[in-house]
């Protein structure tokens, strides 16, 4: 019976030791790679490095909103690449899901205890990290927002944000429409008697990202269309963007779905597909794409010989259904955000801010993908399932 108790004691000791071994091993790994840290940031001037930074790498925690989506994996790859390029040490982490606010708060607190030179943060809740931000402001630890950033920050700790400019990203789709020969020919041939319709499907007129994309696309498309039919481009469909002209030759029609549900988007898409002279459609997010695909027999109507085979379609974001439509050539192409750049720029700006340089908001850009480049290594990283 004494043996049993001894066993219990040994067991617990072994448990602690195994912890020690694992933890210690990992630590050894990171510190082992540190001695090579004499390298200076390649971009910035070495004089602007903080004092006492000799041989010691700048440490920057990068706190994401999640981890499991491919999106965040791409952000991490970008952040890691920037850290390697600039010779800084980063720690990338995020909670298991986007509802675990407490986990993220603890994570950020734990990293704050290490007195980082700067921090990159995509906050799940600005309220929950308010005091941490105040502490950052007080200790002069610059915070760089990334992705959705830290909205409504009042502490002044957040110096800049690296995020997608949705207007510019959606304008990219309009530009691509302007490069499509068939569509350009149609726009040139358009008359007031037989106007050409270019549609834009958005799932709401409320959310900032979708609204931004709608504005971006509509404005750029109108600009391009004006080149071929000056004074004859009409914007219709939703009062928010309406700019009607008499006897238009090109009509840009904005179709906003009643609710964000797929069936409502499908109804909106069906109504748009009924428009005479419809030549092109832009769907402003994954939800819009899903609803649109439902309205065209899961995309089969867009294929060779289908009812809408001539229709030029562009999407936004990714997702399995959209990727399939692009890969099959049913879609002309789609726009995707660039999470890799979001991660890269966030770290790059954090390093700059840590070195006392001024930083400002940066557009991390967007990428156009189509059947040809969808499987390229760089694009495959950006388009999630």
């Amino acid at each position, binding site marked *: *019976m*004494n043996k*049993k*108790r001894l*066993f*219990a*004691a040994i*067991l*617990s000791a072994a*448990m*602690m030791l*195994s*912890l*020690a071994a*694992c*933890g*210690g091993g*990992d*630590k050894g790994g*990171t510190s082992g790679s540190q001695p090579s840290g004499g390298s200076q940031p390649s971009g910035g001037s070495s004089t602007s490095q903080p004092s006492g930074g000799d041989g010691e790498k700048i440490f920057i925690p990068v706190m994401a909103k999640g*981890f499991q989506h491919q999106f965040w994996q791409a952000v991490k790859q970008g952040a890691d690449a920037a850290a390697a390029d600039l010779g800084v040490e980063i*720690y990338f*982490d*995020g*909670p*298991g899901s986007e*509802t*675990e*606010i*407490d*986990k993220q*708060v*603890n*994570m950020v*607190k*734990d990293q*704050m*205890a*290490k*007195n980082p030179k700067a921090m990159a943060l995509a906050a*799940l*809740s600005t*309220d*929950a990290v*308010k*005091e941490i931000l*105040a502490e950052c402001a007080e200790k002069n630890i610059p915070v760089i927002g990334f992705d959705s950033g830290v909205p409504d920050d009042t502490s002044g700790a957040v110096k800049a944000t690296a995020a997608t400019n949705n207007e510019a990203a959606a304008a990219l789709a309009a530009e691509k429409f302007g490069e499509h020969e068939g569509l350009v020919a149609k726009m040139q041939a358009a008359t007031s008697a037989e106007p050409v319709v270019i549609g834009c499907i958005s799932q709401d007129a409320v959310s900032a990202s979708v609204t931004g994309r709608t504005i971006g696309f509509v404005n750029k498309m109108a600009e391009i269309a004006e080149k071929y039919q000056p004074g004859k481009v009409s914007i219709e469909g939703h009062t928010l963007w309406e700019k009607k002209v008499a006897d238009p030759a090109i009509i840009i029609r904005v179709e906003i779905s009643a609710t964000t549900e797929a069936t409502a988007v499908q109804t909106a898409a069906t109504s748009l597909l009924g428009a005479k002279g419809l030549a092109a459609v832009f769907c402003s997010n994954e939800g819009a794409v899903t609803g649109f695909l439902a309205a065209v027999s899961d995309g089969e109507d867009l294929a060779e010989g289908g009812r809408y085979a001539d229709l030029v379609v562009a999407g936004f974001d990714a997702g399995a259904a959209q990727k399939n439509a692009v890969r099959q050539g049913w879609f002309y192409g789609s726009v995707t955000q660039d999470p890799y750049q979001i991660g890269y720029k966030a770290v790059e700006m954090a390093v700059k801010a840590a070195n006392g340089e001024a930083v400002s908001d940066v557009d991390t850009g967007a990428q156009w993908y189509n059947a040809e480049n969808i499987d390229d290594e760089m694009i495959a990283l950006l388009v999630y399932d």
Partner: protein
Amino acid sequence: MKLNEKKIDMQKVLAPAALVILYVFFSVVGDGFLSMTVFKNILESSYYIGFMAFGVTFIIITGGIDLSLGTVMMCAALLGAYTFKQLHFPLIVSLLVAVLVGAVFGFLNGVMVAKLKLPPFIATLGTMMMSQGFGSIITKVQSQTWPTATEPVGGWFKKVFIRADLFGVKGFPVGVFWLIGFFVIAALILHKTKFGRYVFAIGSNEEAARLSGINVDNWKIAVYTLSGIFVGLSGIMYAAAYTTITPGTGNGQEMNGITGVVIGGTSMSGGSGTMVGTLIGVFIMSVLKTGLSNLNLQAPWQTFFTGLVVIGAVLLDIQRTKAANRVKKS
């Protein structure tokens, strides 16, 4: 016999020893782990788990279990914030609402277990889902926020429960007073009152307790309700630490509380346990989590190691029960 007593004493020091070893270990290998900031982080992430664990210690000693801890805590925090932010109740009333929510669900658990004879596992599984759903229904699945420190109305909330400028220390962790205060209350109830003695009696042998004239059903209801009050308080501490409460969360939080109790040496089969053990168990968990995070081991690793510790703790519990049985026989 003398030798046995000595051995049992050695087991009692096992948990505190583990806590010290862990703390020293992380201080040595960690990056600035041995600092006031990290110590405060450990404290602040322990408050709500501590309150949950204090409450459920009573239940586990009676041989029961409460799986609804986490979601009831969130429900309490959600409804408290809802009454404050949406219904504009005075903050003090909202705090009472939070405690009341905990007490009501605790009472419900108690009635189901004691009167309706539902197994505690099933009864509390039911309230776990009910409380989660209830919180979402009332708040219409909208996140709720408690006042932050700088808000004109209710700004005292954080200063009272989490940190304030006190004794010339900026951001003094005042929550520790609440934790220690309620620890003392819980320990006194468990170890120094009739209530506590009955808790142990019911846990060691329910039938014997009944035959000796204890109204087991009523005491059980009282135990679950008391635990519910502690869970309501844990909701307040959670809110003080994390401000924003998301509906539909809380699943899995109960395991933080239960694990703390088990690591602290309270037997899952009931009849034995101490409140000080629970306190130490909770700190072991927090030190472990904060320490692993300090070593830059990402979240999945922390979960993995916590799991390892749970298994280790339960194995210890089994050994302990066996040993205790042998002592009884000899």
